[in-house]
Each structure stands twice: as structure tokens, then as C-alpha cells.
């Protein structure tokens, strides 16, 4: 993990209130697994850094793509950053999807909203390994959807929106009957309520979930972003033990 002033190569709105930020720097070479994140200092005015998942990596050009959603004043201020500016980045943080250890032939990826981005780099890595990738992507509306074409280039994609303006109207779990039999392992990232629905519908199937929570330090020292676990330890820290967990490892509430 390192702290680095990374240079902005690209920064643009790609869906309503959702931005693509491409950063260049040495940190890119440290990324070892899809699903890891970086912790960004918006400016000195904002006390806490913002965790943003890594959506894509270009090792050759030393660039990483981050997609973030405007959630409040801090992320809103981040949208003002211009190409060629430098940003204070800490990372790469946490444990991602353990892609080298997972034995899967057919993977189901289930992403909700801003939980979709980390699954993209995962989908690319899985496809590279020869794994058949099927994706279910959920958004609030068509204008808030993104990356659907990119996922389509990697396998079958099902899209769902809350208001029905794109794809199926409803929840990501509504589409489970359509993908039955097309996967042996699932990977999911999104709001906790979605993760809970996905894991409870897919009990018995090996699965990995990526979680988010308000963070303090982002490196495991402050214990702000904990999630209960069933073992003797009783908890996991999302920033450093996660954000990706085996679905059986944590207790979603």
C-alpha cells in the first residue's frame, strides 16, 4: 500500500451523477486482485478520504479507471477535478476477489448501481481465464446505467432497472430464474439489502460478496467499517479484511 499523488488522465460524467476518473501512477502496479479499492483525499476541506473501487486496470500504461457516484458534498467536489490535476490517493486497499484461488468454469456476476464497477475488472480477468461469464446488472433507471456494453463484450448480460426504463423492471434477484444452471459460483457487489437478497437466494452456491461502509482510516486501524462474522473473532474490517468476503464469512444485517 502506498500514498501517491496520481495524475488525472480522464474525468467525465458517464451516467447521471456517475463519473469515470482515470488516474495514472506507480500504484497501478501494486493492484493484485479485482475488487480492491483506493482511498481518495478530495481536498483539505474534507476530513475523511473517499473509498472508490477500482473498475479497470491498464498495467502497460499504468492507469486505473475508477467509477464513482455523487453521494454528498465530498464526491460532488470531486467532480470539479480537472484532467492533468494530481490527487492524493492511498492504495490499493483491501482484499479483492481471490481470482487465482477460485475454481470456477461458469461465473454469475450480480451488480447493483455503483456496485457494478469492481465487477467489470473481475469479469475481464475471469474471461481471460476462460471462465464463462453471465452478468446481471441492476440500476435505478436507464439514465443511471453504465458499463452494459462493456459487460456484453464479455458474456451474457441481463439488465434490470427499478423504473423499467431499461431491461427488466424490478430487482436483480427477479432474473435468477433466467440464469439458472449457467453458473457454479457467484460474485456480487451492491447495497447491503441487495447482497442479503442475493446470498439468501443462492444458499448452497459458492459465492463472494463485496461490501461497502463509511470508512475512517481505510487501512484497518480505526474499526469504523466492521461487519459481524460467525467465527470466534466476531467481526471483519471491510477496508482491510475485505471489501470482498466469502459469502459464508460475514453476517449481513
Amino acid at each position, binding site marked *: 500500500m502506498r500514498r501517491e499523488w496520481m495524475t488525472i488522465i480522464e474525468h467525465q460524467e458517464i451516467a447521471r451523477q456517475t463519473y469515470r476518473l482515470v488516474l495514472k501512477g506507480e500504484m497501478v502496479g501494486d493492484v493484485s486482485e479485482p475488487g480492491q479499492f483506493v482511498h481518495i483525499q478530495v481536498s483539505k476541506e474534507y476530513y*475523511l478520504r473517499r473509498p472508490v473501487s477500482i473498475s479497470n486496470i491498464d498495467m502497460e500504461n499504468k492507469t486505473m479507471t475508477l467509477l464513482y457516484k455523487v453521494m454528498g458534498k465530498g464526491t460532488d467536489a470531486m467532480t470539479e477535478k480537472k484532467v492533468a490535476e494530481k490527487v492524493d490517493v492511498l492504495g490499493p486497499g483491501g482484499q479483492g476477489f481471490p481470482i487465482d484461488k477460485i475454481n470456477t468454469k461458469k461465473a454469475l456476476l450480480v451488480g447493483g448501481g455503483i456496485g457494478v464497477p469492481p465487477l467489470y475488472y473481475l469479469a475481464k480477468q475471469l474471461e481471460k481465464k476462460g471462465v464463462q461469464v453471465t452478468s446481471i446488472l441492476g440500476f435505478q433507471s436507464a439514465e443511471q446505467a453504465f458499463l452494459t456494453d462493456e459487460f456484453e463484450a464479455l458474456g451474457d448480460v441481463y439488465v434490470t432497472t427499478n423504473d423499467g426504463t431499461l431491461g427488466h423492471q424490478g430487482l436483480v434477484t427477479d432474473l435468477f430464474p433466467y440464469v439458472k444452471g449457467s453458473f457454479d459460483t457467484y460474485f456480487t457487489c451492491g447495497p447491503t439489502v441487495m447482497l442479503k437478497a442475493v446470498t439468501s437466494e443462492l444458499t448452497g452456491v459458492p459465492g463472494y460478496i463485496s461490501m461497502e461502509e463509511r*470508512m475512517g*482510516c481505510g487501512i484497518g486501524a*480505526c*474499526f469504523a*467499517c*466492521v461487519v459481524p462474522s460467525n467465527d470466534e473473532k466476531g467481526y471483519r474490517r471491510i477496508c482491510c479484511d475485505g471489501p470482498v468476503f466469502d459469502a459464508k464469512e460475514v453476517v449481513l444485517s
Partner: protein
Amino acid sequence: MNLHQTLPGLHLKNPIMPASGCFGFGKEFAQFYNLSDLGAVIMKAATGEKRFGNGTPRVAETSSGMLNAIGLQNPGVDSIIKNEVPFLQEYDMPIMANVAGSTVEEYVQVAEKISHHVNALELNISCPNVKEGGVQFGTDPLLAEEVTRKVVEASVVPVYVKLSPNVTDIVSMAKAVQAGGAHGLTMINTLTGMRIDPATRKPIISNHTGGLSGAAIKPIAIRMIYQVYREIDLPIIGMGGIETAEDVIEFLLAGASAVAIGSANFKNPIICKEIIDELPVTLKKFGFQSLKGAIGGAHHETSRAGVFRA
């Protein structure tokens, strides 16, 4: 410039240490710099048994600061002695253990055990985020004196008491713990605060209230240290919103003999190291020939009339 400082139980090569709760048990920060560069380290709180702490969200940003309600999550004193202290002992710096509890008996039990493995204790009677113990001991002078006395008796190393700013009269609290036999003070802990999300109309932190830290509380810390320094003859380790070497000098001038850096570690994980490196130059910039020359400097020209007494 010589930055050495000697306080009860603590031989500091410089006056900078990370504050309890903002540094875990050091492992995470050891990937960024050599912890032996620190003056000392104050560990995350230890309680008798392991604690999970409060529900999430546990943090919220504020203007020039942050709120937290971790709730003293820790693996329990036995696990800390076995699994965490040995790592810190590999480094060349004194270790302070932060001791917490729900009852006087728990404080005593934790102090008795952990004092054999560290150089000093920080008695935590000021955590605003736990229902039992914590701040109730830190806002009642009689309870504060009692728990201090019993912990001092049980400990084999000097005991510093961490004062709560959530009181009307900080000097009377400092006098109470001095009467209880404290060897030093650490001040201040966080101030109780709250934020509400206009979109959900609910408190952001699941515990509703949290402890306010960061630059926002620095003037309060400076005022309280200034008041206590005038009235009490105990060394003070100051903390509360320190982010720069200049902030450190302000704390020294108010009366602190050393300082601890808290939530600034979250903004910048190498902040302690940066401040240690900058301190000699900054002291010189303001005309100080030594670290000790700055301590209490703001009191030299003013009377000790106790005008700030509540």
C-alpha cells in the same frame, strides 16, 4: 535540535505520538514508516473482555473534523497482551496502554494485567461512545478520583488520566484525578456531537451521537490545557486537532509537555513522521532554542489569577 523529553515512565526521543483509537495497534501504519521514529505510541483501548462496539455507520464527516462512535471495539486485554503488544515491543519507543472498563473492578483488572507489558497507562474515563463506564467516570470528580486511585494502586507503571472535555469545569476534574494519584494527564478526548442527514431525517451515526475530533476541536483543547496548566502541577500530553508542527507548538505554549496526533492519521497515514521531521525547523522559525523552551510559554507574560476558572 534536541527533541528529547522525559515524562513519568516515558523517555521520549521526540514529543510526538499517535493518539489512542486512531492508530490501532500500529501494524497498519508500520507499512508506511518505521514506528521507532515515533516518540511513543498509545494503543487502542483495552477492556477486560473482547467488545464488538457499536453498530455501523460509526463515522461521519463534519466541518473541519469527524464524528466517531466505534464503541471501544477491541479483542480484550489478554488477547492484546498476547497478540498485539509483542509487535510494538519490537520497535524502539515507549508504549502506553489505554485502559477502559465499565466498572472500577474492570479498570483495575485491565490495568493490573497490562501494566506489566508497557511503559505507562492512559486511563480512559472519557470515552463518550459507551453506555456504561467511559464518560460517566470522566464527568464525576468523585468517581474519577476513586477509579484513578484504584488503578494507580494496581498498576506497576505511571498512570496518565485522559480527561473528558464534556464537563463544565475541567480544572476540578484535573484536581480530582491528581488527588487520586495520577502521574500525568492526557487531554482532551472527543466532544460529544451529532449529525443528521436531511435526506433520511435520521442521525447519520447508528449510535446517534459520536465523539467530535479534528481541527474543529483544537481551540477547545488549547483553552483547557492552558487552564489546567495554570492550576495543576502534572505533566500534560496534549491532543485535539493537531495537524501541523505549528499546531504542536501551540499545544506546547499552552502547557503540554508532549502531544498526540489523532484523526489526522486518517487524512494522511504518515502525518506523525512528517510532523517529527518538521518540528525542529518550525521551533527555530518561531525563535525557540529547544523543545522545553516552548512548554508553557504562553503563561510567562500573563498573571496566574485563574481568570478562566469556571
